[in-house]
């Protein structure tokens, strides 16, 4: 067999990764490197992976690019700094539901608002995986967590709606079950000039699945298969059919506006300062 070409994007001496058996993070990470591989001009030297803190954010350590494993919730600020200092670089952010929408919530909405040219991929496992299963702002109502032993009563964020409302210019969702679809939307997001946001639903069998009696990893992925509805079909569904745990996947929003890095360099020019 010929070795898969995307293997060159993994730090081979760091594999196998430390994620639990059946954790969806590995699937999402492969989708990202396969999407990057399709982009001509994107190389290991001009592509930067930035992550925060969490199981999901460990991905940067396995990826053979220039990588930054930063502070909890702060991946977007670090990525912003990189993009403003060196706008020619391709900057990809990997974050978790806790990292992005709890401690990093403000960085997230303001990153969207500024339309910084980043691709942010949120690995949504509906829980704080790394710290043992506390509820995150994306834990569904009624689901159990160590901090919600009777089921969460906090209404969850829809991170895609949040990103769109805050000003992101590419917003899409997919799942670890729909690997090819996930890879395709990441590819499209990489093409977008501006803040691109992708929610990748991933299974956390250890801290979420087990506690919520959803069963082993394959059952969690079968749940994604059975409940995800493609955007086109979702839009045609009457409200009374958008019930249970059904949710839409696909591209939700796309727009073109000036990016923050363009605006920033423009203002530097009129101010007559800062040589590049």
């Amino acid at each position, binding site marked *: 067999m010929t070795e*898969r070409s995307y293997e060159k994007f993994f730090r081979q001496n760091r*594999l*196998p990764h430390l994620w639990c*058996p059946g954790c969806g993070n*590995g699937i999402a990470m492969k989708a990202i490197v396969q999407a990057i591989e399709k982009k001509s001009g994107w190389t290991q030297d001009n592509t930067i992976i930035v992550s925060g803190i969490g199981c999901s954010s460990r991905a940067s350590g396995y990826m053979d690019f220039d990588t930054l494993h930063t502070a909890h919730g702060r991946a977007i600020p670090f990525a912003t700094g990189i993009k403003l200092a060196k706008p020619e670089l391709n900057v990809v952010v990997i974050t978790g539901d806790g990292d992005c929408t709890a401690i990093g919530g403000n960085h997230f909405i303001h990153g969207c608002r500024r339309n910084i040219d980043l691709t942010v991929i949120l690995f949504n496992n509906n829980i704080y995986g790394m710290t043992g299963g506390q509820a995150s702002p994306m834990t569904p109502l009624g689901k159990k967590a160590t901090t919600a032993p009777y089921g969460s009563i906090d209404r969850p964020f829809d991170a895609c709606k949040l990103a769109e409302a805050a000003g992101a210019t590419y917003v899409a969702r997919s799942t670890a079950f729909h690997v090819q679809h996930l890879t395709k939307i990441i590819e499209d997001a990489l093409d977008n000039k501006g803040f691109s946001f992708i929610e990748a639903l991933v299974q956390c*069998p250890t801290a979420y699945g087990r506690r919520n009696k959803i069963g082993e990893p394959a059952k969690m992925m079968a749940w994604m298969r059975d409940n995800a509805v493609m955007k086109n079909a979702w839009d045609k569904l009457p409200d009374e059919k958008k019930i249970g745990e059904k949710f839409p996947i696909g591209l939700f929003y796309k727009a073109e506006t000036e990016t923050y890095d363009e605006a920033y360099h423009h203002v530097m020019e009129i101010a007559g300062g800062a040589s590049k």
Partner: protein
Amino acid sequence: MKSEFNLKLDRCKGCGICVAFCPKQVLELDTLGKIFVAHPEKCIACGQCELRCPDYAIFVDKVKEEAKK
């Protein structure tokens, strides 16, 4: 056989995802909990197992019939 398997057993964590999504029940876990190609003759080289393996431990290539001879 129409397919050629390459297993990276040191990567396999025995999660069972490939076993569950194989449409032809080709795969099983062995007694040590590692992936095992129990029924290679039934494989249709659809690649579903490789596609969803979170640990990049199973790879399947289509093999042309003539190439085998």
